[in-house]
C-alpha cells in the first residue's frame, strides 16, 4: 500500500469538524499518516502546515458555504508554492454546480455529502 501523508484541514469560521475527524480516523486506520489541523485556521496557516510537513495531499473540509472564496484564497497559492506537487481534495457541503469552478481553481477531487469513506480511499490509491 502506498502510504500517503495527508493534512485534513479546516479553514475559516466553520466550527463543524466531526466529518473531518471521521475522515482522519478512517484514513489512519487504513494505514496513512494523517495530520489534523484543528479549527479556525487561515489559508496561510494551512499553507504553512502543508509545506512544513511536506504532505502529499490536503483534504479540505468546508460546511459553511464559503467554499468558493476559501478555495480561491488557498488552492492556487498551495499549488504554486508546492510546485503543483500537492493534491487537494474537498469535502463538506458542496453543491454540484460549483464543482467545475472549484476544479478550475485547482481542486483535484470533490467528495460531496453522498460520498462514501471508501471513495476517498480508492481515490488515494
Amino acid at each position: 500500500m502506498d502510504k500517503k501523508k495527508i493534512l485534513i484541514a479546516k479553514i475559516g469560521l466553520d466550527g463543524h469538524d466531526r466529518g473531518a475527524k471521521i475522515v482522519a480516523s478512517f484514513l489512519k486506520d487504513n494505514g496513512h499518516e494523517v495530520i489534523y489541523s484543528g479549527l479556525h485556521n487561515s489559508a496561510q496557516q494551512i499553507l504553512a502546515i502543508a509545506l512544513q510537513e511536506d504532505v502529499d495531499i490536503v483534504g479540505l473540509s468546508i460546511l459553511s458555504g464559503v467554499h468558493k472564496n476559501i478555495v480561491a484564497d488557498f488552492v492556487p497559492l498551495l499549488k504554486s508554492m508546492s510546485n503543483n506537487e500537492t493534491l487537494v481534495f474537498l469535502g463538506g457541503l458542496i453543491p454540484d454546480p460549483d464543482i467545475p469552478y472549484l476544479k478550475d481553481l485547482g481542486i483535484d477531487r470533490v467528495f460531496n455529502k453522498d460520498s462514501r469513506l471508501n471513495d476517498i480511499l480508492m481515490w488515494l490509491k
Partner: protein
Amino acid sequence: MNPSDIEMFKIHREIAKQITKIEGNLDIEILHENIFGNSKAFKIGITGSSGAGKSSLINALVKKFLLIEKKIAILLLDPISETSGGSLLGDRIKLDKKYPELGVYVRSISTHRYNQNIPKSLKQIVNLLTDFNFEIIFIETIGISQQDADIRKYCDLIISMPAIDIGNELQYMKSSMFEIADIVFVNKNDKMIQNSNSDNKIFLDEFLRIKLQAGGRIPDVVYGSVLNGQGTTEIFNKLCKKIALLGLHG
C-alpha cells in the same frame, strides 16, 4: 501574502523536503557531519505521558525564546499504530498556530516502536536544522517506549513531565523517566492541591528521599502550573544557564 513570508515558506518547504528524504533513508547531501556535542543547536527533549502538558510547556518556553529572538524548531514524535501502520499526528494541533509565520519550524515525525532507523534519522534531522541556523530544537515524545532511553543521546537536556495521579512512590521508583530527566516538571500543581492529590506530592517527595539515600542521582524537580504561569520562568532560566554552560551562541 507578503514577499518575506513567501521567501520564508519556500525555505521551510526546502527543509521539509530534505527531512522527507532523511525519513525515507534516501541519501541527502550532508553539509556537515555533526558528532553529538559539536552541533551548535541546543536540543531540548520534552517527554511525559499524554496529557501531562508537554505542548503547553513548549508553548510557554517558545514564547520566551522568541522574545530573545532565537531561531526555533520543534520536532513532534508520534508513534505509528501497530495495528494499521497508520498514524494520527496530533501534537501539532496543540501548539500555537502562529509559529510558522514567526519563523518557527514545526514537523511531526511518526516513529516505529523499535525502529533502529529513527535515532539515526533524528541525528541527521538535527544536523540539517543546524545547517539552516536553527538555535533551539525541541524534541517532544511520549516517553513510554524503549525508544526514549535513546533520546538522551540526541538532547542536551531532557525535561520529563510525569502524570500527576500515578499511584504511589513505587511507580516513580520503577519509572525510567527519572533516570533520563535533567529536570522533572510536575505540572498542574493547582489541580493537585485542589483535588487533594497532594498525596501525589507526598509520594514524589518520598521517592526522591529514597533515591537520595540510596545514593542515586536525582533530577531538578520543579512544581508548577503552565496554565497559571507558574514554574515556566524557572525552567526557562535553567535552560538559559545550560546554554551558557555549553558555550552555545550566547
